[in-house]
């Protein structure tokens, strides 16, 4: 899976928000963080709109087939 998972995107956003809340952050950095934050929010939203849940059927011995649900 090349795309980032929701959790990875979400952690990245939390880091951005935490750094932005640092009172010592300078304006150049804040502008960059702001852009990153908005980009991550857009990616998270797109993820929640478009990603799908996948179901793999396993047996007690081995995996057989997989299909998409929803």
């Amino acid at each position, binding site marked *: 899976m090349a795309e980032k*998972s*929701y*959790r990875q995107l979400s952690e990245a*956003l939390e880091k951005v*928000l935490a750094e*932005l809340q640092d009172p010592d*952050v300078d*304006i150049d950095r*804040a*502008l960059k963080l*702001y852009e990153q*934050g*908005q980009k991550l*929010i857009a990616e*998270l*939203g797109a*993820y*929640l*709109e*478009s*990603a*799908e*849940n*996948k*179901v*793999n*059927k*396993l*047996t*007690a*011995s081995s*995996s057989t087939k997989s299909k998409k*649900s*929803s």
Partner: protein
Amino acid sequence: MSAELVVSVSEFVALLNQTLEFAYPSIIIAGELANFRVSKNKWLYFDLKDDFASVKFFGTVYQLPGPLEDGMLLEVRGQPQLHPLYGFSVNVQSIRPVGEGSIKRAAALLEAKLVAEGLFDEARKRPLLYPPEHIGLITSSEAAAYSDFMKILDERWRGITVDFMNVQVQGELAVTQIVQAIERFNALAEPPEVLVITRGGGSADDLAAFSTEQVTRAVAASRVPTLVAVGHERDVSLAELAADRRASTPSNAAELLTPDRRHVIDQLSQISQQLATGLNDLLADNQRQLQVIDEAFDEIIGRTLHSAQDRLKLNQQVLEAFNPEAAFKRGWATVRHHNTLIRSGQSLAAGDIVDIRLYDASLKAQIDNIIMKDDR
């Protein structure tokens, strides 16, 4: 005279056992438990009885569904056998409490035992990742539980991989299959982040597998955190008590595992707005700071200029003090002779015509007499 068949005792035992094995390879006998005892922590001896008969049983503790006590109603699967030395008994294959009273009693005994072992301790409970990316689902594909769980999961969240193992959730095979599924998920190279073991509601009999010692211990032993959801109204199954988290129904399990993505999308847009507001505030702050610096700068420059002006005024006063005009005003005069400023009486002689300058006039005068200071 026909010769009757005569057999030895051992031959009789073997013959009878062959007949019994042929007639009853496996039979389920229901009755009330009596004279239950465990020998050397390994062997089981008990009787099943009803109003008119009593039959002996023999087995091992591994076949126990949990602790038992006399008076319980059981269904015991076994094979009748005549032991060469100890006589008739049924060799136990499996034991199942039946009837609501016995099931509850068996569950209560097992619960007390597992509580004493600490299997249900709060300290054992592990948090579940929220939301998970990888779920192991153990339920029956035929029951509503599977579709209910997946429906709510699909509504609420996206991008989850669900590994599903189809098991019987009631009946004789349920216990073994559920335990195997839990063990199999734990043995995967990439085990799921949470195991969901679920079924819908049913009678006490239907739900019995979820209160067996085997399933309860398998749930407690799972390295993968567990969520057990058994639909029911009153009693909680022991597997639920052993789980890291329990839910009331399969749908509720899906709800506990995931946030509602519509709500999260709303939150994301709020964060986006807060980010924008935050940035604006930061810019405004910076502007205010610039303004403060600007004002401070003005003040310093102003003060510097001010002190320069003060110094200038002082210099002017000093300069003023040396202004000869001021001396003339005070009554001083100068004497020149042929345009040369006279500093000494020796530079003049009687009869010389001199120019005298006063504050407001110039005089021409002739020297009449010269008296030197020393001559006085």
